[in-house]
């Protein structure tokens, strides 16, 4: 099966700033692919190259089997895009903007459009200039979700939405996935990607530093364990793969490498475990593994 997005060694510089530095990315059809990274890592640049808005300096990018620069118009009929910062025309209403995007893309389902307006609680009769950031984002989201396309390119699509709308958005993405469409979901909201994505790629300074399913990535990181044991558990600190062990009031906390979990759990059993909390690593922890140096340097915090 052809990949929906297939990128090899993509380079892009703006003046002296290297935005993309040999980026590789593969998104399989019918999957939701989380595209994670901090601000300025190159997420938007990648998406703009995929849209043919920017021209890559080097490397290869294929989108739905076509060339994103040369076949832009034909490809755009098969995809919908939601920018991170939606700007609307001040004197057009939200409804007009939605219809316009749909018509420029080549048709939409009016029933679905109205249904989405309702679900997202959007008043389409307001002028573009009166919308808040979140409402502008809803306009772009509705326009994208109401269209019958194979691929959705979403660049931090929910940055301005409240938690209620975030939930609506997640429902919609699940429906899109059930319909067999492909989604590239760029985000730095980790919980969202965790819930929605089948595959995740982490981008840092224009390079993909990690890619795989959430399960695969979890394998690479440490699980947090809290336990209350009959006998003192200090000895666990000597086991391979156990990090940062602390004890207070008979409770022991530590992190353990994924592949050492079995050994540690067996040992805990032998110590007479009474209470046990095991948490899988969050995406924060995955990211911190790659950006930890920066964050610690900034005094933001350590892996908890």
């Amino acid at each position, binding site marked *: 099966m052809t990949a929906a997005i297939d990128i090899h060694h993509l380079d892009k510089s703006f003046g002296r700033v290297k935005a993309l530095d040999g980026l590789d990315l593969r998104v399989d059809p019918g999957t939701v692919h989380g595209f994670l990274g901090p601000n300025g890592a190159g997420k*938007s640049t990648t998406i*703009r190259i995929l*849209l*043919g*808005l*920017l*021209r890559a300096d080097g490397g290869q990018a294929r989108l739905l089997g076509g060339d994103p620069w040369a076949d*832009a*118009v*034909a490809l*755009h*009929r098969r*995809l*919908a*895009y939601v*920018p*991170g*910062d*939606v*700007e*609307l*025309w*001040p*004197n*057009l*209403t*939200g*409804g*007009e*903007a*939605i*219809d*316009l*995007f749909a*018509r*420029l*893309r*080549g048709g939409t389902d009016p029933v679905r459009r109205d249904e989405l307006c309702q679900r997202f609680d959007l*008043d*389409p*009769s*307001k*002028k573009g*200039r*009166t919308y808040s950031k979140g409402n502008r984002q809803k306009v*772009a989201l509705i326009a994208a979700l109401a269209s019958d396309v194979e691929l959705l*390119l979403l660049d931090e699509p929910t940055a301005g939405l409240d938690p209620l709308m975030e939930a609506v958005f997640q429902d919609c993405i699940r429906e899109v996935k059930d319909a067999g469409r492909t989604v590239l979901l760029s985000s730095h909201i980790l919980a969202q990607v965790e819930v929605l994505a089948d595959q995740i790629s982490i981008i840092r300074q224009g390079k993909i530093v990690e890619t795989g399913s959430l399960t695969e990535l979890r394998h690479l990181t440490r699980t947090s364990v809290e336990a209350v044991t009959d006998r003192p558990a200090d000895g666990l600190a000597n086991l391979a793969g156990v990090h940062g062990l602390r004890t207070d009031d008979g409770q022991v906390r530590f992190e353990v490498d994924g592949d050492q979990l079995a050994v540690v759990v067996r040992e805990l059993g032998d110590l007479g475990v009474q209470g046990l909390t095991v948490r899988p690593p969050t995406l924060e922890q995955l990211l911190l593994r790659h950006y930890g140096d920066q964050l610690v340097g900034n005094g933001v915090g350590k892996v908890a």
Partner: protein
Amino acid sequence: MTATTLDRAAPAGTGTAVTGTGSLLRFMLRRDRIRLPAWALGLPLLMTYFAAALDTIAQTPEDLAGLTAFTSSPAGALFGGPGFGFDDLTIERFLAGQYGLYVLIGAGLMGLLTVVRHTRTEERTGRAELVRANVVGRHAQLTAALTLTAVMAVIVALLIGAMLASRGFDPGGSMLFGASVGAVALAFAGIAAVTVQLSEYPRAAAGMAGAALGAAFVLRGLGDMAAVQGSGPSWLSWLSPIGWSQQTAAYVHDRWWPLAVSLAFAAATAVTGYVLSARRDFGAGLVPPRPGSPRAASWLAGPFAFAFRLHRASLIGWSVALLAAGVAYGSFTQPLLDGFEDAPEDLVEVMGGGSGDLLAGYLGMMGLTMALVVGVYAVLAVQSLRAEETEGRAEPVLATSVSRTAWIGSHVAVVALGVPWLLLVAGVGMGVGAAASTGDAGLLGDLLVGHLAHTPAVWLVLAAAALLYAAAPRVLPVIWVVLGYGLIAGYFAPILELPEGVLRLSPFEHVGEYPLENISVVAVVVLTVLAGALAQAAVAAFRRRDLAGGA
């Protein structure tokens, strides 16, 4: 960046509505470190240019005397002023009484643009919100903007006064004329302080204040025409802020008291601005927004219809303005002809009537003027295209199945169709006005042809602007040079004695100012083909480059 310059907050508990004005003013001076000197030196330099130009056309007392007939005619009054002391003309009287008008208009623009820039534009972009969240009073922004404008007005007044005095003119009159220039800046700063409260949009606020400037020009024009004719409503000049400055009669009566009217007017409008600003919400206009259609009209499909929809409001506005301006200038035709009757040959030439046919000269010149104005429309339209891109609205459109060719092509096509439309509207206005004024209905046809004939020249400006935008968007403002040169070449060529080859660098100097000159079909074809080629190059360049990021 905005916030860091404002960290010197007032002590707690002492805040008033103008707290923070000082910090804001320093911040504005920092932001305007290039713009302020450009205005403050630009207006005195313009005055210097007029003084130098006058020296070349009036080298002997006889030359000067020859100017009298024109200056004391209604035409001279319309484009100059009430002509104080023109019966005993001196260089400085002519300078202040005739050319001074254009410096006064420039000062009005300076005042209104400065206030809009530092109030409504800041609010619209959201920067003012960051500022206001600091220890900054409700009225600090407006107060700082008005103070800045006052500072600029004083600098301009002093520099112009000093420049004129240094040419050996009477120091008292020189300082008075300088002050009268500053007074216009203050009056229009006051008007802008009101208009920025009315609309949410900086452009609309500047447009309303600009319309007031236009009205001030026309009112004093009508009044001054009546004054030189010795009959009619000469009091109209006293309704105009420009009129007050002209009524000082520098180098003649040297009266300062009309400037008190200007200052009182500036104060009253500023106070109105403060009162209105207290009655509205931050970021809002006084007129609440109305809801629109929840669905797009069925014709609104495809890039061309969409481009038209975006340009529609501006086209309507320009049509109304050009129609009104056309009728106004058209109805001056007969009074102008009467005024010109005794004018000396060389002056008629300056006004465009070289062949001795005054009527044709005036009408032809108005055709050129309207073409330059429509050129301004075309350039502004291309600039709005750039705003679509840099403000991130082009990106989602180009992410649909609209190709780059279709996007830029439809916008340029809409503007290209707007050009002959606007020339037609202006021509109809001029024609109706001129026909009514002279009683010769045949003028309507002449004016329509004369106006429409400039279409290819404006197209060339449009295509050049589009090419600049497509190939090097940052240098797009360079296109204003073409229009500015078109203005100089069209109006001042006889004074400047430009060689034919240099003159013809302006795209507006080829087709001919019908009905004074015949229309050159060759020029029409060449300009159109050239414009088409540039437009093609623009599309090709736009297809090749990266799109500017929105956020």
